[in-house]
């Protein structure tokens, strides 16, 4: 190979080509990741907007901001936007897309064209759903329970369901791409047990996506058939069985919780090792734990249906199985803690998010055990306790991990460093705001306040005001990173290839990386987190 001229060497994936066409028709995984970053951020703020209105309404016991009907639409659209259009694609589609090929030492994903198609499907599904939201919205709850969704709701159920159906294929194609890439495109010497845990997490997530999403697709298709043709599949008045809908829905939607949180666990493993300058404690246990969560996550869906009329015996079995998921989850938390123990921890922004994740995920996970306990769940079902629990997992876990990862790899993606002081400040603000928003909701739920109501008895007001106050801090905390991250783009590209002195193949290339990632395919000779050896050399 001839040596490339200077200007070719300078080109990175962002400056390789110019013009809107070069972005909309790109097959470069890094550019597609940026397309996703922009689109899911949009959906995050759409979902956040609905949350703001809800928290405003809940400041007082009476209904004074919105009507009951509007409130039903708000919590439904908040759930739909956040779960399907932000959380499910967030880490895989943005960070996974950007990093997976680089962590494997590959030039791109196995199927670049399919990758671009995924983004277009995401956009088609997303735009259609936005259209449905603007022209009347949907009020069924993000769970679309039948028969309300098929027979009674007068809102845009079918368009939203079609949007999510299309989005499902976007997820599936991403999953296929990641799985094949991980199997077939690892650099020489990169054995399975030398893979970064981020890759393991993406792989486990892709397995879940592949095996769960199709069941959601067919469930929503059947829902659409019932609603359009007025035939009884799930509606008991027409001869169907509504519990079957719940079984099929949760066969996807419980594993979907792990689609959202496993990638964050992968991110946290990277952050903890890098900033504690230590090898991960119990690497193989960590790898097996994500796979175990992926499998066990499919065996527990009935714990969402304890009060649905499901058989008592099935309920007991699902309850017992649910406890098993706690084992690999606890292994992960213990091993992160053990990795941090006696580490020389550098308190940079990304690791603050990792700390946030570990603490909040632990609270979310433990309260999950309360809810998996049959008798306790009967008391807590459909109360704010459940709302608080899953926000600790989804926001405290998944979003913290996403933001931590975004801060960690931002210099790699853009070549720029953000303002560390502001970043630390906003991480702190987010942690405080989050807890102030959702901790009172545990108490509210325990006291018996049901979810999905726009009015409530007066004695709940103090806690609700606290929660709304927290939400406004939280909202502020989400705006700050937007500002300083965008601001950093005005600065010159001074990050250098490896600003954190991190291990991992992605740090071997310039920041931002060239289109083909590596000039020569790297050869891997050691595990992913050999930090200690290096520090010994330094000393």
């Amino acid at each position, binding site marked *: 190979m001839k040596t490339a001229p200077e200007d070719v060497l300078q080109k990175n994936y962002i400056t390789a080509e110019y013009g809107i066409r070069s972005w909309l028709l790109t097959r470069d995984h890094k550019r597609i990741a940026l397309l996703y970053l922009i689109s899911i951020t949009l959906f995050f703020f759409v979902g956040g907007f609905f949350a703001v209105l809800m928290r405003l309404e809940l400041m007082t016991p009476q209904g004074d901001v919105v009507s009951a009907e509007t409130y039903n639409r708000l919590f439904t659209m908040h759930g739909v936007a956040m779960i399907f259009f932000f959380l499910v694609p967030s880490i895989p589609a943005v960070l996974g897309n950007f990093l997976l090929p680089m962590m494997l030492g590959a030039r791109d994903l196995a199927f670049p064209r399919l990758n671009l198609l995924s983004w277009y499907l995401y956009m088609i599904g997303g735009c259609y759903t936005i259209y449905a939201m603007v022209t009347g919205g949907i009020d069924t709850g993000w769970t679309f329970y039948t028969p309300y969704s098929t027979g009674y709701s007068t809102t845009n159920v079918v368009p939203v369901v079609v949007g999510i159906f299309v989005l499902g294929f976007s997820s599936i194609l991403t999953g296929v791409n990641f799985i094949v890439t991980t199997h077939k495109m690892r650099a020489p010497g990169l054995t399975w047990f030398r893979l970064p845990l981020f890759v393991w997490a993406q792989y486990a997530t892709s397995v879940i996506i592949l095996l769960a999403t199709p069941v959601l697709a067919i469930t929503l298709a059947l829902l659409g058939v019932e609603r359009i043709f007025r035939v009884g599949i799930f509606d008991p008045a027409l001869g169907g069985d509504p519990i079957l809908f719940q*079984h099929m829905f949760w066969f996807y939607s419980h594993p979907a919780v792990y689609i959202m949180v496993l990638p964050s666990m992968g991110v946290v493993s990277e952050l903890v090792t890098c900033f504690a300058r230590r090898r991960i404690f119990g690497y193989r246990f960590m790898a097996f734990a994500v796979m175990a969560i992926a499998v066990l996550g499919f065996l527990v869906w009935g714990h969402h249906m304890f009060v649905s009329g499901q*058989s008592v015996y099935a309920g007991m079995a699902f309850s017992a199985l649910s406890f098993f998921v706690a084992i690999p989850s606890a292994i992960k938390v213990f091993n992160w803690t053990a990795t941090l123990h006696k580490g020389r921890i550098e308190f940079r922004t990304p690791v603050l998010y990792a700390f946030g994740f570990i603490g909040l995920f632990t609270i979310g996970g433990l309260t999950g055990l309360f809810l998996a306990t049959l008798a306790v769940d009967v008391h807590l079902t459909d109360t704010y306790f459940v709302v608080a629990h899953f926000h600790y997992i989804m926001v405290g876990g998944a979003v913290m991990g996403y933001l931590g990862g975004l801060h960690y790899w931002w210099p790699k993606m853009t070549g720029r460093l953000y303002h560390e002081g502001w970043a630390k400040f906003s991480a702190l603000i987010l942690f405080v705001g989050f807890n102030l928003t959702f901790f009172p909701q545990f108490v509210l739920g325990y006291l018996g306040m049901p979810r999905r109501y726009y009015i409530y008895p007066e004695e709940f007001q103090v806690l609700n005001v606290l929660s709304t106050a927290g939400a406004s801090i939280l909202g502020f905390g989400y705006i700050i990173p937007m500002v300083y991250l965008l601001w950093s783009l005005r600065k010159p590209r001074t990050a250098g290839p490896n600003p954190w002195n991190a291990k991992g193949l992605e740090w071997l290339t310039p920041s931002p990386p060239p289109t083909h990632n590596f000039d020569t395919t790297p050869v891997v000779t050691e595990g992913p987190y050999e930090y200690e050896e290096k520090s010994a050399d330094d000393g």
Partner: protein
Amino acid sequence: MTGGGFSRRIYYAVGITLLVLFLLTVGVAYIDLGALNIVVAMAIATFKTILVVLYFMHVRYSSRVTWVFVSASFFWLVILLVLTLSDYVTRGV
């Protein structure tokens, strides 16, 4: 993965076996076996599937990963069917 393959004779043999099994399915359906009818029908269908997967889809000489993928998809199908039915068959017991 490519190259190799079976001889043409084997493809014809598998094809004919599939047709015979199909005729068997129809034939058995006309005999009253009570609850066993569905069991036999599903057993034959599963056997036909195994033949198609192993020979027509070449899994017999495919890599271990392919075996894992095939087994995983059927394993997950079993999870879906068994856990869902576990609710319905234990109701009101």
